[in-house]
């Protein structure tokens, strides 16, 4: 009965706390690894690989947002700023000082983290709508002023703040991250590391403190949780995750511009969470797949159709944005817990069939 996780059957704490508790789960995860590392690269063309990279980038970018909104209860609408700061710090350190990519990545993570920490300081005093305002301020101050006015011009004349790094410089030891496929593998490695890091962090004292703050910060303080320290820690780690996401984005493009991190991207990441599931790690993945995948599905339909009916390309594409607004509203009304919860319910249903309730 390895397959069905019902009934008490763990004899040790270790088994009880294991991530993958049954042999069936192990086999499933092994199969997933085979699909991700061998089947997709082998049998899927360059186009879908680049879609996967975009999904990976969205996952990495949304992870910090999930940490802040989903686990610490600090609503952020400026996360693109930390991603941009990370990407710029990584790009500039490579472009100006020729540091290796991995060092650039660490610098990017710190830069993103420190920026987020700086703008997270008001959270000591304010919460709710006001913290939204400070994170929005982070978005506009960072992108429109810091990156554009001060960091961008370091790239040289006439570039409008665009920094490009030689694609050959993205190397880890002998491995040069050059092609789309290389980026794909690097994306998988980063997503797995970050995912494991965050999943485990949430099970520690720190993670539990965050969740306590999210649920009720006054009660948490009464229980002896140092709210200031933990809130700021959450801001720092979320920012550092954003910085890592930015450094990954740099790998896929070899170029970075303030235009890559607009306000809508911050909102988009919140949309990813709302659809995937707030406060759920898997929600990040489902949300990212949904938001990126649906856009590609629309493209799949529109491009052949517009060859037959040219009017579609001009007149109906506004529906694309309309659709996302609609998707978020539908999810908020019918499934506020997001796709992750829906997936869990579906799994439960299959496990317990035909005796579900």
């Amino acid at each position: 009965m390895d397959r069905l996780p019902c009934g008490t059957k763990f004899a040790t704490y270790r088994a009880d706390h294991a991530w993958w508790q049954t042999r069936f789960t192990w086999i499933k995860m092994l199969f997933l690894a085979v699909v991700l590392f061998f089947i997709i690269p082998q049998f899927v063309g360059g186009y879908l690989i680049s879609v996967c990279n975009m999904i990976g980038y969205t996952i990495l970018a949304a992870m910090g947002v999930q940490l802040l909104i989903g686990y610490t209860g600090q609503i952020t609408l400026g996360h693109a700023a930390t991603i941009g700061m990370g990407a710029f710090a990584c790009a500039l350190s490579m472009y100006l000082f020729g540091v290796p990519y991995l060092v650039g990545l660490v610098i990017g993570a710190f830069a993103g983290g420190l920026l987020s920490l700086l703008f997270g300081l008001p959270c000591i005093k304010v919460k709710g709508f006001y913290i939204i305002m400070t994170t929005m301020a982070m978005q506009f101050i960072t992108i429109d002023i810091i990156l554009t006015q001060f960091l961008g011009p370091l790239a040289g004349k006439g570039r409008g703040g665009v920094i490009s790094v030689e694609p050959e410089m993205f190397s880890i030891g002998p491995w040069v991250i050059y092609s789309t496929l290389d980026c794909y593998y690097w994306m998988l490695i980063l997503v797995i590391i970050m995912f494991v890091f965050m999943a485990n962090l949430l099970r520690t004292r720190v993670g539990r403190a965050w969740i306590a703050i999210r649920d009720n910060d006054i009660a948490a303080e009464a229980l002896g949780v140092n709210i200031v320290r933990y809130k700021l820690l959450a801001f720092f780690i979320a920012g550092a995750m954003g910085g890592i996401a930015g450094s990954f984005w740099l790998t896929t493009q070899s170029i970075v511009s303030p235009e890559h991190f607009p306000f809508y991207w911050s909102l988009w990441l919140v949309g990813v969470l709302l659809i995937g599931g707030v406060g759920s790690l898997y929600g990040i993945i489902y949300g990212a797949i949904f938001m990126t995948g649906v856009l590609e599905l629309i493209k799949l339909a529109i491009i052949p159709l517009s060859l037959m009916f040219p009017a579609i390309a001009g007149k109906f594409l506004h529906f694309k944005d309309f659709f996302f607004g609609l998707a978020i509203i539908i999810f908020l009304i019918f499934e506020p817990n997001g796709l992750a919860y829906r997936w869990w319910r579906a799994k439960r249903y299959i496990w317990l069939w035909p005796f579900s309730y």
Partner: protein
Amino acid sequence: MKRIWLFPIVVVLSIVALIASACPAPAPVAPVEVVKIGALQDMTGATSDVGVDEARGVAEAVAYFNDIGGINGKPIKLFQYDYGYRVPEAVTTYTRFRDYDKVIAVLGWGTGDTEALKPTITKDKIVYLSSSFSGHLCDPAESPYNFVYSSDYSTKARATIQYWYDNYWLKDPRYKEEREAGVKPRFAFFGHFGVPYATAPVEAIKEQAKMLGFDFLADQDVSLWALDTKSQVLAVKENPPHFVWHGNTTMSVSTTLKDFYALGLSGRGKKTMHGSNCWGHDENTIKLAGPAAEETLSANKVALFMWDYPMRATVHEYAQKINPGVPLEDRLVHAVGGWLKVHLMVEALTRMDNAGELDLRPEALDTTRARLKHYFEVAPLDDIAKLYGLAEFTVTPTDHRPSGKIAICQIEGGKFVDRGFVDMKALYPDLWAGWLGW
């Protein structure tokens, strides 16, 4: 299990995606000899105020060239897609064009996508003919596969300020007093700092202004979506500029012009005059800004839609044929730009076919893509440029700036008037080479 229906929807969507991706590209019924071109457009995003009409122009031009026989009898298939100025979407759409639709070349749109894709294009060796004319995209040492269809922003900006200096500051009676008192003309830049399109020519125009002896006021940040710019205009009101360079697109430039007018700084005969980049003015400027736009100078990328240029009759005919719902009076200069873009591409492909190198077999795709670059550079395309009111289009393997001759136009009595060409290459022959790439 209530509301389980969401789950099947997701499953069905994923299955559709899987099946669709497993199917071959939706072209097997078409003949093998089809020349495929991808086009990234912005019809819904930040630059859609100018992007919609260019997209229409591109589609109309392709229809025209297919009607007259395509590339020596091979029809052109255009894959056009709106990416809403969202860079991640531009990236996936480009890879779709490259790997799935298997296009020969791509017609790009703004700085957002062109900059982001520049290293990828260089790696893939695919010609990318873009509507983003940033100076550094014209340096083949840096981006050998990027082409622009009209002169770069920096040369345009230099030419516009040169024209103003020569024809207004040195000659116009309104500046007589200041000129004789030895006052230096004052320059201000208005544009969206966070957008490379707006800021790309700033260093160039400032260098030109410095050379001509200008004084500088603080740059003012105006969003591409700005609906009110009074605070920025007020910031320069105390010591008003003589010449303002606008880096944004039509909508926000018109807003700024109106605010200058409302605060009494500019308008016919006033001392503050304006110049705008080639995406910062079009037929809508007059409708949006009215008297506030009087005397504004602009560097044209092509002739305006209603002007008299050799291709006018054809452009108008296809505009009515393909987009009958849009009256000709509402069409913009950007559609003509779309035509020029397609025409240049068609000409290069025809040259390639004439040389017997347009090999459309799937196994030869990479070679054909990489080789196309040569047919832009091999000989001037001046004849094509002249059809749309430009002076020349000549690119070489070492310099992708199409021309040093910039067409200047001005708003005069509610109409755009042609002010002829300013030849920056002839005016500054010693400096011209050094201006490449910024």
